[in-house]
């Protein structure tokens, strides 16, 4: 799914400058699931904006709405009656959703409330890691189901670099080396022969760094104590 995280409140407020009637629009899909832009977050942000307005006497009118999927016109259409009322939409959906809203309502300014980060999956409650680089040319069948694009800091296509130490990536000891994982996986699958297969270079313009990106929403992560308290509950 698509992983995003809310922009800093101050930045959101800055971007809203000059607007008075605001519709905070959430999405029930990916961003809801990664606790960034669902109805709950919409409600919290909207209430915070109201408090901000009251404090600074801005007289903002803040509305809330959450649709099933902001990336689909049919759902976004539901917003029409509300968008008429406002002079800007604060989209709590991913970049895709925000764009669809803009596309549907070309005359109303759309401001992103989220930073869309990556395509990933929850590791545990509150922790999401990137899994797919969206390169458009999938090689998972050759790499034991592990994506070198998303999970190798250097996006190497044919084996690890010298920075791979005891299965860990040189960028930091916490990050596993994708190619080590690929090797282990192929070994388990009995298909080490696939290591031989040469994966041709991709046209990979957007540079990236820092390896797989992980978003941690600390307020949702189970603390050590909690984990202890709930030891073995599941």
């Amino acid at each position, binding site marked *: 799914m698509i992983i995003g995280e809310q922009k800093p409140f101050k930045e959101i407020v800055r971007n809203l400058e000059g607007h008075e009637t605001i519709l905070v629009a959430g999405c*029930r899909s990916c961003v*809801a*699931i990664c606790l960034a832009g669902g*109805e709950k977050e919409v409600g919290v942000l909207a209430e915070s904006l109201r408090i901000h307005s009251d404090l600074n006497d801005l007289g903002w009118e803040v509305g809330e*709405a959450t*649709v099933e999927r902001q990336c689909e016109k049919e759902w976004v259409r539901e917003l029409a009656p509300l968008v008429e009322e406002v002079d800007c939409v604060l989209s709590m959906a991913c970049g895709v959703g925000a764009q669809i809203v803009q596309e549907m309502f070309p005359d109303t300014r759309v401001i992103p409330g989220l930073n869309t980060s990556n395509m990933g999956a929850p590791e545990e*409650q509150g922790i999401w890691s990137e899994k797919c680089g969206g390169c458009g040319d999938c090689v998972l069948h050759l790499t034991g189901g592990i994506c070198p694009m998303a999970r190798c800091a250097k996006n190497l296509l044919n084996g690890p670099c010298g920075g791979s130490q005891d299965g860990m990536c040189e960028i930091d000891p916490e990050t596993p080396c994708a190619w080590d994982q690929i090797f282990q996986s192929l070994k388990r699958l009995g298909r080490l022969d696939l290591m031989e297969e040469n994966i041709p270079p991709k046209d990979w313009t957007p540079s990236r760094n820092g390896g797989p990106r992980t978003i941690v929403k600390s307020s949702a992560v189970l603390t050590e104590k909690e984990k202890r308290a709930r030891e073995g509950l599941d």
Partner: protein
Amino acid sequence: MTLPPGSEPVTMSSSSRPARTRRPVVRGEREPTGRIGVFLCRCGGSVDGRLDIESVREKVSSMDGVEECMVMDFPCSMESRETIVNVIRENDLDRFVVAGCSPKAVEARFKSTAQESGLNPYMVEIANIREQCSLVHNLSEATSKAGLLVEAAVAKCSLLVPAPHHRGRVESEEVLVYGNGMSAVVATDELVSEGAKVHLVLPFSPHRLVFNYHDGIRPGHLEDMRDRITDSDLVRVHGHSSVERFEGEPGAFTALVRSSEGAEEIRCGAAIIAWEASEVPSPSLNGSLVVTQAELESIMDQGRVPDRTVMITLREEDTYCPERITHIEALRNAIRMKEMDPRVQVTIVARDVLAFGLSELDYREAMSRGVSFIRTEASPLITVGDTVKVRVKDLNLGEELSIETDLVVMSSWTQPYDTGHVAQVFGTPVDREGFFIPTQVKLKPTASIVEGVFLCGTGVESKTPSEVVLEARSAASRAKAMVSSKMEWGGAVAEVDPESCSACLTCIRSCPFNAPFIGETGKAEIEIGLCQGCGICVGLCPSRAIQLYCYTDGQLGAQIGALVGRVR
């Protein structure tokens, strides 16, 4: 969600689409409705006199929805509650507020009052104007605060919706006992003597019916007990069987019991996991010069006593984990050796001699008979030749001793086996060593994290036999009380609005009681019998799809609104 028979299925979901594109009216919120009765308590002088109850009455009776507002002496008394019932019936009120002392003290009574007047028991709200008002503030402060508290209660009350509620006998009064040692037998005996039907499921390897150390339990007693219960027509013994699946809710569990003949589903209202830990022989045992306490006993049974004996009660790893039974056992055997031949040398190596309660008397006797004690922290080093050498650091002398001896007796340690599987089936956690973890919260002796499933036996914690007996009987007694008392479901329970659920699994991941699950519709649902009403999932649900009866967002919002946002 599966509501038990008899409960009114009430939904809080407002499914009118496209509701969610309106500024969300929080689910389950209706416009404030209802005909509200307010009963203010004088509580002798502890409310009236410490605040001006009359002015509170004037303030409140003018609120919309309030049909009836009266001051009473003790609404909680039997007589007044009858009056309340009549007032509710006469004025055809559909909810009411009581302002008086703490809901923790009186809530239960007014719930039944609500029922007696034909209302859902959860259509009552209580304003605490005593403990949290009249007893702690001066007259004028208390008066104005009481006004706010009652207004807030009315505001919340006007948004109450009937909560699912079912009270009735449990579906099954039978109890499942799973285990194969002393605690299982004792628990079953207790249940039988309390007249309960028992399914005694014995896993494959029977062990530890009788402990090596008797602890005052009459020899043969447990064997008799076992025969008695196996003959009892209240007990169905499932020999060489294991529980493969265990699901349902307190009062109505279903267990899949598999034996060599095949699998069988049995219904039970409660379950007791009565697991005994088994002995872990220490690595340096060799059967001749280094033996267990049990082996020592058989040596003594043959009338033999070695001249020099060293007993080691420390575990061979460094982890300090005292097991009192090993100490008492060592003391008893040391005394027995001295009885057989006062001249023999017996030395007990320990960090602390764990002779709790009356076992202290054994400790004294051992000392008076000349048994010597060495205090040490780390487990001694044992080297075996024709004789055995024990190297140990004596804490009192502060020096390393090397003792030559004819026999070394090592205490055995206990560790539960197979508990991982049991834990999985029943959903009760085990720790790293495999011991069952009783619920850590508050003090609920013998309770597990799963309501209706009780724990006892050395599989929970090392114990002496007499402690095992006590624990098993009390676990059985609680199980019996549970299946023979009326069960209550509902009240403050969570409910999912499928319309807005994103099936994001947040509730499933965050519920401590495994109440939420994904139903056929692919949306989350709450197993009402398992929901304890904590509301954790409600606070977390990213789609605000879950609400908690009696504490909905709207009800709390109204309460908060009434309490603050007032001129100072």
